[in-house]
């Protein structure tokens, strides 16, 4: 493992954050954080609780507009897009897995996974077929008609991963994606997510406090008190 100063920009980068700062009320969450993720690269963002990992992910996904600095996703400056445009960009090119699954309650698992396709105007039957295939990949082929309330935390998380991957995203952003899974399921889910980078050439950002998960990344960016504390190339 070797450490090097973090990059501040990169041509053709999948994700570029430049001097991003954000605070909740008076509590700073991010302080001038810069980060570039290239296509095909897996970056693990680590650090203690409250260091700004999730905020960084929300900024990268365009869910949160930073108070200072800029965020570029797939070459598009997110600050130049309104809410609708950010949502469209997110559903077409980005896969998101957040803590606790974030599935839509009262919708079957099949429809939950098919959602990004349906929102793009996809046919119901075709979208459901694609969703069933995605559920098979995460080992939930029998749970298609269940609603999120009927699932365990781990099952819901696997369904959220299936949903994030159904559009073959160019960027996958995941916040503690395997925290609620057992060791075997976690390994399977991670391999599935990493295939976005290893096989399809997409970029993957994993927010985690698990050293074993971080060890699977190409690069680790460690945050402390909202700043980049250390950046290490792992492979």
């Amino acid at each position, binding site marked *: 493992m070797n450490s090097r100063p973090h990059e501040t920009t990169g041509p053709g980068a999948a994700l570029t954050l430049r001097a991003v700062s954000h605070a909740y009320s008076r509590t700073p969450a991010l302080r001038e954080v810069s980060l570039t993720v290239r296509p095909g690269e897996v970056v693990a963002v680590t650090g203690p609780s409250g260091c700004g990992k999730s905020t960084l992910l929300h900024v990268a996904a365009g869910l949160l507009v930073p108070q200072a600095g800029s965020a570029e996703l797939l070459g598009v400056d997110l600050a130049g897009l309104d809410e609708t445009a950010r949502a469209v960009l997110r559903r077409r090119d980005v896969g998101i897995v957040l803590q606790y699954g974030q599935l839509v309650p009262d919708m079957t698992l099949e429809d939950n996974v098919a959602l990004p396709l349906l*929102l793009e105007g996809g046919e119901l039957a075709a979208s459901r077929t694609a969703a069933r295939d995605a559920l098979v990949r995460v080992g939930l082929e029998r749970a298609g008609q269940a609603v999120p309330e009927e699932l365990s935390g781990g099952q819901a998380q696997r369904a959220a991963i299936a949903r994030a991957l159904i559009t073959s995203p160019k960027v996958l952003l995941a916040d503690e994606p395997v925290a609620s899974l057992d060791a075997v399921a976690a390994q399977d889910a991670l391999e599935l997510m990493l295939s976005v980078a290893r096989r399809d050439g997409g970029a993957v950002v994993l927010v985690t406090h698990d050293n074993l998960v971080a060890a699977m990344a190409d690069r680790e960016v460690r945050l402390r008190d909202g700043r980049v504390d250390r950046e290490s190339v792992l492979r």
Partner: protein
Amino acid sequence: MSATLAPRRRDRVSRLRPAAVRSMTAVRSHTDRVRSRATAAAAAGTGVALLIAASVATVRDDLVVGSWTSTGPDGVETTETMVQASGGLAPFLAEPGLRPGFTIAAVLLVLPFLALAVQAVRVGRVVDERRSRRLLLAGATWADVRTLRTARTRAAFVRGGLLAGPLYLLLWLVLGWALPAGSRLLPPLHPAMLAAWLAVVGVLAVAAQVLAVLGFRREERLTWGGAGEGVPSRTFVALTALGGVALVVVLPVVARVERVYPALLVLGVVLFLLAAGGGAARSAAATVRRPQPPVGAPVAAPRSVPRRHRRRDVTVHLLAAAQRRGSTAAITGTAGVLFVCGLSFGVASSMAAQLLVERLGSPEYEQSDLGFYLTGFGLVAAVGVVGAVVAVAALLLSLTDELLGNRRAVASVAALGVETRRLVRVQAVALRRTAVPATVLGAFVAAAPTTFGLVLEAAGSGHWSPFIPLPVGVVVVVGLVATVACELLARLLAGRVRQAAALENLRVP
């Protein structure tokens, strides 16, 4: 690598296909089922009130009841005939002079039902917000979320509209067919009523669309249970009140509007009611926005716990106050509907007092037609019953909404060892603190002017009827009945409280 599909202009509208919308809005959860049924029932009530207004407005005067000839100063004889509607209708409907009042009353009957429908649409707001947030996370635009929400509301309203036809028919059988001639309150059925029914379905579908769009506020979606959420603004209250004054008082003075004055009066009263309901909702919201003690301050019973209860079960009052702080939007909705119900009780008691003072208090009316007054009391009872039905429905909806939205909180408190009996008390106290002031205020606003008028009249004539204080007395009774109703309804829904307290609800996100 770059974004392959740049967002386009047409992304401003939802791309969801109808089949996907149908599938995504299918009623699957208990919350959706409650909301859908309550909205449809309230829309059906609105539809029936509209059909009553339509049927009364189309009554024709086709029966000659008398004629007389008079000679003018120029020696010319003129014959005048007195006509009224046939069909054995009650005098309120048969006599052309009295009919507009009945029509206006029927139109105003729409208001409590519509207010209830608005409240029903908001049931499960917490669940709805969670759903919206997760849809947005999955890449939905606000246009998608709006499309789904509108489809859900429209389906319930249209179902209610379709139900209104058979319900009107049932009502007609009771009030228009079964009653003896001379006291019927609904005119004979007419083929035009079929067209009116279809029109009502259309009106309700449009109302649902408007309601869904108006109720869809991005800012609200982005805040989670904020204290100011869903509270009508001061500007809204002021503008609606001023609009009411302009239509009812100013416009008739500055312009010739005699022919359209009944319509202006209805519109003006609607604006007044909206202003008053908004004011009641703001006042209810203000009761839960109490300043919190600074960190480190001595812990005492909070100000939101009434002094008289502080020595009693403080836990119950603490939990009730906390619950109310977390559901400002639901509280304001309930307070608004109950205020309108309070108004209907006030109006009913005022009408009853006027009839009693006229009938029993004045020798001038001793020989008048008893049937006329009986029909009048029937109408009073109808207004009171509508108010009571809507009030009970509003209270039930409020309780159900609280229990659906706060399942996790209720389960957490139960897990800490608070027994179900106490949780039921919490619901009763929280409900009472919203319901009683709103209902009493509504009843007082409607009853006070009548009482004042009757007092002035009695002072002029010197005849003091014992029925003059009736409207104000009813306000006190309304307060007591509302208190008891809250207690009974909370006990009635004890099963729901037990369900909400189930440990599995700790898993609800």
